[in-house]
């Protein structure tokens, strides 16, 4: 894990997601008891009551569920200012029961449309990603 201060928002059970991205692994959690996919990660399965999650490595392959082209960088993500306009998106992951992960477009905008296949590219931590290793998503052509 990098030394950058970690982001405090959200539930906070997603540490293994970010740790794995630093190793070049995309993984999402599922309940060890009933197998339900749980994203965002949580501490207990609300369906079966299990406290155990298993993190499942997946191919970073998805479908573009929705997107926006941002023409300004809001205060909380000001470090993206030099990228404006930049495209962010939700990637639907069929292998994880259709769970959706947040991402940014990587590479060309050619073919940008809801429903197109997209593929995750492992990106190292940078100031733009607030020191986190991330997946950039590129359109599969």
């Amino acid at each position, binding site marked *: 894990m990098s030394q950058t201060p*970690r*982001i*405090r*928002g*959200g*539930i906070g059970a*997603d540490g293994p*997601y*970010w740790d794995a991205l630093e190793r070049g692994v995309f993984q999402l959690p599922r309940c060890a008891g009933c197998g339900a996919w749980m*994203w*965002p990660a949580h501490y207990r399965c609300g369906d079966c009551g299990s406290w155990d999650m298993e993190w499942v490595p997946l191919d970073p392959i998805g479908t573009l*569920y*929705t*997107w*926006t*082209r*941002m*023409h*300004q*960088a*809001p*205060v*909380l*993500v000001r470090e*993206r200012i030099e*990228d404006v*306009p*930049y495209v*962010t*998106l*939700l990637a639907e992951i069929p292998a994880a029961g259709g*769970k*959706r*992960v*947040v*991402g*940014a477009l990587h590479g060309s905008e050619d073919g940008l449309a*809801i429903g197109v296949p997209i593929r995750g590219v492992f990106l190292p931590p940078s100031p*733009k*990603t*607030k020191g*986190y290793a*991330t997946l950039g998503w590129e359109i599969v052509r």
Partner: protein
Amino acid sequence: MSLRGKTAIVGIGQTPYYKRGTAPDPEQKLALRAIVAACEDAGIDPRDIDGFVSYGSERNTGQQMLPALGLRDLRFAALAWTHGGGIPGALTIAAAAIVSGQAEIVVVHRAMAEGSNQRLQVAVTQDETPAQFLVNGVDFILARSAQRAMRLIHEGVPQECFEAIARAGYFHAQNNPGAMGHGHMLTLEAYAASRWIGEPLHLYDCSRESDAAAAVVLVSAERARDLRQKPAYLLSAPMGAGASQGSREDNHEPYTSVGMIGLADRLWRESGYGPSDVDVAQVYENFTPMAAMALIDHGFCTRESAGDVLTFDNLIAPAGKLPINTSGGNIADGFIHGMGLLPEAVRQIRGTSTNQVPGARLSLMTGGPGDSLTSTALLGSDETL
């Protein structure tokens, strides 16, 4: 036991709206001004206030304001556990306190002044935005709402609905001298030519960030009848999050819902009314598509019929089928985390709006759309009880 009709809003107070960062007073002084104005409107001595409720990241607490208001006995104070989604829910908390005997005169308030706080979009989401959003350049408000709006268009709701909501706000602002958009009529051409903020959101699809404060005073229905203003009775103001909603980080279903489907069901059941009965609505529009989703969640239209229902002519007072945001709303009146919508919902019941819907008896106010926990409220005149 239902809270239906057991309490009423009997006082409303607001400061002027100032461009963010330019208020002549610090934030807490604005809050005090709004609260004192609401008490004067109600004919209540501020010293008799015994409860405060707010929502979101409000920092001006009852205990801090107690000395300046001369309170004799602060008996109840609470914060609704959410952002702009908490406004109607704050009314329910206040009503529950009154009906259960915890307090008698409860203020619901919100104040924002960037000079003594920080930028609203930061103040309300700092340390609350999950990592997967921030590391990808997605703030919790704008980019996230833009993504949802893009999907809504994909599902069949035309951009013209967003434009109609924006133009309705500006249309109403022309009759409201206090609105920040007063004197600035928004034409179709100006809307279309305005810059993108985050596609599909144009500049005019986005709410402002203002310095201002607003407050309302709630008392029991019995007490309300003896006061000087026509009471706006609280018929229902459910708060909550359905099983598929809550903090799911955009994995909620349906994705283009703003979490109000179950709330609306509870609202209509508790109040005994339905969408076709509503005379006027203040619909929280941080962004116009989120307001469209709130109206869909409430059953005013479907994704399929939105293009026919959410038209400029339908959304304007006095003659539209569902006039919305009759003071100008968050977009054209001013934005203090949505709180400006509530006094306007009350004015419609009183018959004192600058864009009055003739004979309005049922007045809706929806809370912040898309909050992980949100709420919605129906106010009514005494004939609706």
